[in-house]
């Protein structure tokens, strides 16, 4: 499990998050709308996972470990952040 809800109410993304985990992430975001997503341990995330982040626009705790995530995806998410 690389997407999980911690006891502190934070959603953690860890390692390489595959497309299968988009659904789990979506469920977590739906269940805890104000949760922060912590992806500091994330090496790679499938487009489907990133898409959920884009649509949900949660507060994100970074930077992620993955170089490409840090360089391209994080700024992109920040640019797409609602509000």
């Amino acid at each position, binding site marked *: 499990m690389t997407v999980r809800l911690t006891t502190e109410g934070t959603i953690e993304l860890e390692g390489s998050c595959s497309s299968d985990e*988009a659904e789990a992430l979506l469920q977590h975001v739906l269940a805890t709308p104000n949760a922060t997503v912590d992806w500091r341990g994330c090496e790679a995330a*499938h487009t*489907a996972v990133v898409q959920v982040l*884009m649509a949900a626009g949660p507060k994100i705790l970074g930077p992620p470990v993955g170089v490409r995530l840090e360089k*391209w995806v994080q700024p992109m998410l920040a640019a*797409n952040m609602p509000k």
Partner: protein
Amino acid sequence: MNEFLTQFLIESREFVEQATEGLLVLEQSPHDAERLDSVFRAFHTLKGGAGIVEFAAMERAVHAAEEILSSARSGKHALTPTLVGDCLACLDQVIRWLDVIEQTGELPSSPAESRADDTWLAEMLDSNPDVRARVTTALQFIPAPDCFYQGEDPLARVTSLPELLALEVEPVVAWPSLNSLDPYQCNLVLTALTAASMSEVTEHMQGHSGTCEIRAIGTGQIAPQDWVLPSQAREILSAQRDLLAHATPANFAGFIASAGLTAENVLRSCAHPEAAAIVAQATQKSLAESSSDSLRISIAQLLSSKPAALTENARPSVKPEAAAQTLRIEAARVDALVRLTGELTVAKNAAGHVAKLAQEEGNALAGVLKERHSVLSRLIAELQESVLAMRVLPLRSVLQRFPRVVREMSANLGKPLKLEIEGDDTEADKAIVEMLFEPLLHIVRNAIDHGIESPADRAARGKPSTARIQIRAARQGDQVLLEISDDGGGIDLERVREVAKARGIATEEDLRSMSETDIIDLVFAAGFSTAAKVTELSGRGVGMDAVRTAVERIGGRVSVESRAGHGTNVRFSLPFSVMMTDVMTVEAGGQMFGVPLDAIVETVSVPKTAIKGIGAAQAIVLRNRTIPVFDLASVLALREATPNDTAATIVITTMAGHLGGLRVDCIGERLEVILKPLDGLLTGIPGITGTTLLGDGRVLLVLDIGELLQ
């Protein structure tokens, strides 16, 4: 037009029809999942077709509509009438494009379209001024919505582009609320700028699903996507090229043929039919010249050069060959068959005449000849029947256009309407089905515009606010009945009387002696139109008289019934099939007549002096044959003396092997008409075989040459 485009046109039109029909149903019942699926598939196939012929604009437009349907399908949002309208608008655009392709034989290229194309590029460059100087290639990638299921990771693909300089990712359609988000539908547009070369980027993006535009930047010029063959294809092609170098005389033909075929298949499977065609030609040339050079050079060129307009985007969907249940045959070929069958009938009749002659002369073979003739007769009658059956179409092909028409009129006039169509699987001859649209449209427009009251009036009369229009079709013997009824106000008899009087169609006296039915029938009179105001919908200068003329021209009848306050019922009764006859029109004694074309040998113009009197009769000598000449006007007792012109126009006709000349004043045009036998008072008039209506409503009498020349 190339074969691909022709096929694309035919198929696209079918899918547009299917989609339109489905969308209209969906508007009424948005939860019809089966219908939604079928509409979605139609859009999807349209997009696929656009991809194959490399028509990017249409691909994008249809893709957008497909997206709407796709989200409706996944339950993300409901298919509202506005969305249905958007999809219909998209189909309208597609129809316009198809029309352009049909007319020009080429894909349309509007300047507006290509400008729109470049907006993303301009915006991307503007918002990243810091990297502008280093950008060599720009890319806009819209992955297919279902790409995740195909194991694709578009974001990873784009972020791993060599020398990526800038990336923007946006949703294609605004994000829905989270609880209706489908995380496995890709809803992204990825736009990127890189310093890598266009071919590198193209290579990198190979095998993606969805649409991808790659543009070279630099001199500010935007080049089309490069010619790239997948690496496996390149390997196979170069293997063929190497093999060809080793071809020996012993196995030469086999070598060339197999190498050529392999190369062709490879190219075809990478969606380069044009390139495959080039290779096929080269193969033929190589075989003809007994030299592998042509093919080898052609393959080598394909491996190195970059033919324009060949791109990697389109992948043909490989469809299994379904067992052909139906054949698509060009209508012109069936028409040719119908014509030939007609000519066969004429030939058969001539043979019958020969049989009769033989009998009269007491020839021993007469009996056998007659017997054979009757067999031939029966077979030809059967042939005719089956040929005519080939031209049969369901009325659906014309009726299915009406839901759309009614929907639009309903919206424009603010009259809620419900259209019911019954019996649209009733069949009739193609010629009949095809001519029905205009008259039907006119009747439906009239019904909506004049017949159906405003919602307020309807409420006042205690009628449901949604008006009903019914189109019912049914086969009755060899007739096809078509009824268009509405539940509107009916025809206002008083108003008909007034208008008829005012426009001089009938006098006060006439009107008094007329029954209600007769008065209603006046709406078909030429020059009658009760439209108080000319609206956009009806009253474009074509009245009900045009409807009647059109229907009667194909041998049908129109009648109308009306009950004040309850509605109007227009009834078409049409023949099931029509046999067209070719006639040539001629003028004699100031009147126009038709001469069946199969009776005409030639027309000649001779000086008047060439007509010699032989006893009481006249004749001319044409190519050493004496041919009797009759003055058509005198024969028909239209005038006594022949005119004193210096030249005479003579139509040489033949009937059962005898030639005869008909002197006419002038020759008109050649027409294809539907011949109606004489009925009523005219029955039995000698010399006339039937009548037909001319385009302007005049009656054309068609001559029976056999009887005339006797």
